[in-house]
């Protein structure tokens, strides 16, 4: 986080943020389910200026073989930013940052996936950031959770993710690019709807009170996102409400 002289940017105008939001307001979220035909499950998400697509493959055979686990499925998560996703061209390919985000995002989702149902297999999650506007890891996790559900993978619950930050000594929800770049802190979290946190990171500095306030705010944001995720999934099959006869397989 670059500590810039804040005289250059005023983050608030008449109590509203640069994009007209209140401090505790999310950017608009749009979720589409099943956007890729080849993938077993997929999801496209827009969170403000972030545009992210997630694809899930599996469970399927593990290649290379030595990664295989005898008692459970392994989960692989690849976070990748497209070279055109940011203003200055991002050099393509994995880098320190994307390795870290892949790891923490995988660890955010793994606790809810029932990997023991699929020994010796792999569940591959691919997350591609098409356009970045601060908070791509949270968008990626939200998309990946929906894509996992869409792929029919058993999970104990969904995962929703949201960030809170601190700008101009105020705690704000879901910081956008300017607030992230020139703000004082950024705190992304991921959690289950029941409030079990599976990811928490922070950079910048917060006091104890600010930290609690930021976590509260991010959790509320994540709960709102959960409702949007849930609606997106239910809508895909809303015409499906009609009964399917329950049947036992027989010849």
């Amino acid at each position, binding site marked *: 986080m670059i500590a810039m002289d804040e005289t250059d940017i005023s983050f608030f105008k008449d109590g509203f943020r640069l994009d007209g939001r209140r401090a505790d307001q999310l950017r608009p979220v749009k979720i589409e389910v099943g956007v890729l035909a080849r993938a*077993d499950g997929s999801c496209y998400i827009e969170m403000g200026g972030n545009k992210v697509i997630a694809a899930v493959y599996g469970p399927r055979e593990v290649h290379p073989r030595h990664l295989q686990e005898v008692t459970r499925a392994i989960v692989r998560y690849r976070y990748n930013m497209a070279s055109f996703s940011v203003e200055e061209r991002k050099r393509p390919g994995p880098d320190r940052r994307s390795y870290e985000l892949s790891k923490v995002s995988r660890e955010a989702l793994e606790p809810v996936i029932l990997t023991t149902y699929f020994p010796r297999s792999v569940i591959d999650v691919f997350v591609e950031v098409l356009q970045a506007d601060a908070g791509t890891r949270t968008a990626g996790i939200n998309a990946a959770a929906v894509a996992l559900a869409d792929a029919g993978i058993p999970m104990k619950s969904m995962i929703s993710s949201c960030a809170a930050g601190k700008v101009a000594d105020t705690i704000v929800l879901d910081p956008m690019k300017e607030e992230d770049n020139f703000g004082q802190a950024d705190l992304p979290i991921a959690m289950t709807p029941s409030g079990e946190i599976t990811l928490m990171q922070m950079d910048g500095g917060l006091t104890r009170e600010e930290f609690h306030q930021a976590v509260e705010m991010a959790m509320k944001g994540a709960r709102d996102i959960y409702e949007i995720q849930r609606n997106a999934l239910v809508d895909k099959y809303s015409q499906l409400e009609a009964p399917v006869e329950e049947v036992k397989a027989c*010849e």
Partner: protein
Amino acid sequence: MDRKVVVPGDLLSEDAKRSGEGTFVKDGRVYSLLYGLANYRDKINVIPLAGKYIPAPGDNVIGVVKDITFSNWIVDINSPYDGLLHISEFPKRIESDEMSKYLRIGSSIMTRVKDVDPTKKVELTLNDRKLGLIKTGQVVEISHTRVPRLIGKGGSMISMLKKEVNCNIFVGQNGRIWVNGGAEDMDLALRTITLIEKEAHTNGLTDRIVDFLEKEKGARS
């Protein structure tokens, strides 16, 4: 009937005893494990809308031989786990060096899952009169989650279909379906199966399929 779309983690019931397939119990409450349709009966089952076929003992499946080892055929059964068909499970006693005479790489077979061990090693068998090599007809692939609907309650849909289209049909639990009959009959059967897959979630499907078949047959004659 009480039925709705649920997502993983949705609370289904406060009564732990009602936990059925696709659900789990935590602190005496029943939650959904899957994204699918919840079915409220005595037990609550969640029927998935997607997912891979996971073999279970006793399932009839259609597989394609993809490799031959010293004493096993390795069979692709449209699942993350390959099936192993041991030489001793072939109806006839054959020698190891003549395995490829009977089932070659690329051969399609109707087979049955004999056993699945905890590490998901899948053993197949051909020891039944209705199992064996596929020599004629066609195989179509649908999502395995639609198979119960194709079969219908107590086999109602499939027996109706067999009679109406005058075809022999073998339904693999892995979503592969073998159809054998006259060229026109087979074509109609395949189109009907595709329709069932597409509308698997709708109400009164059997009646609509009967209507569809009548119309198609009327158009033909």
